[in-house]
């Protein structure tokens, strides 16, 4: 069973954290001045060592990588021989440009997976070139890791790679999140959704009999979620529905033949789009026209945030107007395995306390099927 894995290290990622910088992109020299030392190489080595413990039976893996610190040298140190170098950075100090150029080359190589080592910044750079064309798996080594592509730690990432190669894990939508740089320059720390890629996920299993399980594809689960939301739209014909961001909501909207803004919030009334990619003010003015509204959202990113990291257009004003009882949370069971807690951080203490008081959400995980999921707010 031969597998082609792309391997990319961002030698610069992760250095900002220890010295208090928010990310390392573009501030490499400053980080070094402040005493930072390289982090990713060590994490990558750790992960690959753990992986070699799992895969003692030797899969036929071809590692497609970059030379030197961007991947090749780590594979060599670990004695991995089946390597193909497809990109060499021109300087010792690598930048986002190197990541992106390497990815352009990777696209020509029919990879089964791209394994990278870095943080949200690196993930974003990869996403801009790769999009959904190659599944991604991140070794967590960056300063910020809100994106859903990372394993929890190096060992978990190694296990995920092993299970994926052995076809026990599958591929599904995960979110690329990062700090909104523009807002950050104005002193605001806000994480937003940048895109959706394919990551490695646990398949959803349904029990079909006494000792029988059938694995259901991510697609099929989302079909069920879409059926459920369709029923909701029909039950509440004169209500406005706000479809929020992320891959799950996007899939649902597509099934309902509604064009959806992947990274933004759209408004739907009687199955027709009445507002696209809305900001807070636009939502508020729509609510004047349609006073009864429901929000349909899904946890995004690595920590299960439904409000506060991404979905920022749902400001406290918007949520208070709509009412927290009118929030519908949908999630695939495999998403909930990854993020078993939902998190909320609206930035408004009274609103957060209302969520804290509720303490949980009934999350829709299938057609007319829900489960209790605990809710955690940042301030409580």
């Amino acid at each position: 069973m031969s597998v082609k894995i792309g391997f990319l290290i961002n030698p610069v990622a992760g250095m900002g954290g220890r010295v208090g910088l928010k990310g390392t992109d573009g501030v490499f020299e400053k980080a070094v001045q402040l005493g930072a030392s390289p982090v990713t190489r060590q994490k990558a080595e750790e992960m690959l060592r753990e992986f070699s413990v799992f895969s003692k039976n030797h899969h036929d893996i071809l590692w497609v990588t970059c030379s030197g610190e961007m991947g090749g040298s780590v594979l060599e140190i670990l004695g991995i021989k089946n390597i193909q170098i497809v990109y060499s950075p021109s300087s010792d100090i690598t930048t986002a440009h190197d990541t992106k150029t390497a990815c352009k080359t990777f696209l020509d190589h029919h990879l089964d997976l791209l394994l990278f080592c870095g943080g949200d910044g690196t993930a974003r750079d990869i996403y801009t070139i790769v999009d959904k064309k190659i599944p991604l798996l991140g070794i967590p080594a960056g300063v910020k890791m809100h994106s859903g592509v990372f394993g929890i730690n190096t060992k978990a990432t190694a296990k995920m790679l092993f299970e994926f190669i052995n076809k026990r894990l599958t591929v599904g939508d995960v979110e690329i999140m990062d700090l909104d740089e523009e807002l950050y320059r104005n002193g605001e720390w806000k994480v937003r959704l940048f895109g959706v890629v394919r990551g490695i996920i646990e398949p959803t299993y349904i029990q079909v009999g006494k000792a029988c399980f059938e694995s259901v594809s991510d697609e099929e689960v989302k079909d069920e979620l879409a059926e459920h939301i369709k029923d909701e739209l029909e039950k509440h014909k004169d209500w406005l529905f706000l479809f929020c961001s992320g891959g799950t909501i996007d899939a649902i909207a597509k099934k309902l033949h509604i064009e959806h803004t992947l990274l933004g919030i759209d408004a739907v009334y009687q199955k027709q789009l009445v507002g696209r990619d809305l900001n807070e003010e636009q939502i508020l003015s729509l609510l004047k026209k349609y006073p009864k509204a429901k929000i349909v959202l899904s946890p995004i990113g690595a920590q299960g945030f439904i409000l506060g990291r991404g979905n920022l257009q749902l400001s406290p004003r918007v949520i208070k107007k709509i009412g927290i009882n009118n929030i519908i949370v949908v999630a695939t069971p495999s998403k909930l395995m990854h993020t078993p807690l939902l998190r909320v951080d609206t930035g408004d203490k009274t609103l957060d306390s209302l969520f804290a008081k509720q303490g949980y959400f009934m999350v829709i995980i299938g057609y007319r099927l829900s489960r209790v999921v605990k809710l955690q707010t940042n301030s409580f």
Partner: protein
Amino acid sequence: MGLVILGGNMMTQITKRNANKFLKDEYDELVKNHFEWNIRVLESGSKPHSIVNGKEVIMMCSNNYLNLSNHPRLVQGAIEAAKKYGAGSGSVRAIAGTLKIHTEVEKRLARFKRTESALIYQTGFAANSGLIPQLVGDGDIVISDELNHGSIIDGVRLTKADRAIFKHRDMGDLERVLKDADKKYRRILVITDGVFSMDGDIAPMDKIVKLANDFGAMTYVDDAHGEGVIGEDGRGIGAHFHIEGKIDVEMGTFSKAFGVVGGLIAGSQDLVNFAYNKSRTWLLSGSHPPAVSGAQLAAIDVLETEPEHVKRLWDNTKYFKKELNSLGFYTGESETPITPVIVGDSGKAKDLSNRLFDEGVFALPIVFPMVARDKARIRTMMNAGLTKNDLDFALNKFEKLGKELSII
């Protein structure tokens, strides 16, 4: 295949579908992925020492907990009923297939369970699939423990009701779901396994009943692994928590500790009247042969008069668990004769099970996705018919193979 000829006077022959090809294709796919069932055949009856695929093994994976399948009174009961009433019942219960002996079993069962009434179905599976869909519909909700296994799931899937899941045995979660459901639904049904068949732990039925009553929800317990095992004299989970008659639907089976076959529900007369008029499986499927009813009656007799079987089952359970633990095996949260021996990796669990079989101990592996990936196990089912020598033999094999496979 077919030909499509274009032009002129066309003779078109449409490609015919192959009706049966998928049978082989799908089976081959299962085999390729090692998902196919490998059926082992018992040449003996299901006994503490059985002959399986030609090999004598200690039976540690049957549900015949009290070894009543081999009890002479049950065998005699079956023979005499067959002699008196014949080999079959001739019909479905509703038309001409209700024999006096069927109603006798139901009366005796209600007395044994200390409920107002009881009803027999062909199997436990038929009970769940027949009754659950009739209890709830559109506008209602079924609330289930996340680890409910088996035929409950099938029964629930047949309904048009909404479904909600609560965390395993978590009463806080259950309360949250009930509070939420209270505002939205017409009827609420709370369903749980009594004894969970993977870990052998018991549902907190007393708390569940109390919470359900607070909200006017109906309670339904599938006590398949509790019948004849827990509660005084093996009367089941109602007796175990001293809440006989307080659980709205006590569902169980004759095919496990009772040693025969058959599903049962015990509860109020209203429940039984409703159930036999509405359950499709009861109305449309042939009733038990007299021999089955004869054995069922004898099983109830035995449980009412011979407490030593249940006692020996528990003595064996305690001994086996204690010894396994002192060898270094972890047996999880088991509170019943279902004793999982946690192995961890799925491959290892399968390995251990196969090697145990080779060495004369028959116990099945339970692997992902039935349990978490790193919690694969050998599930042993204790049996009242095993002697201390049998248990020591099995323990010896577990120790030997456990060490060889680096589990202990």
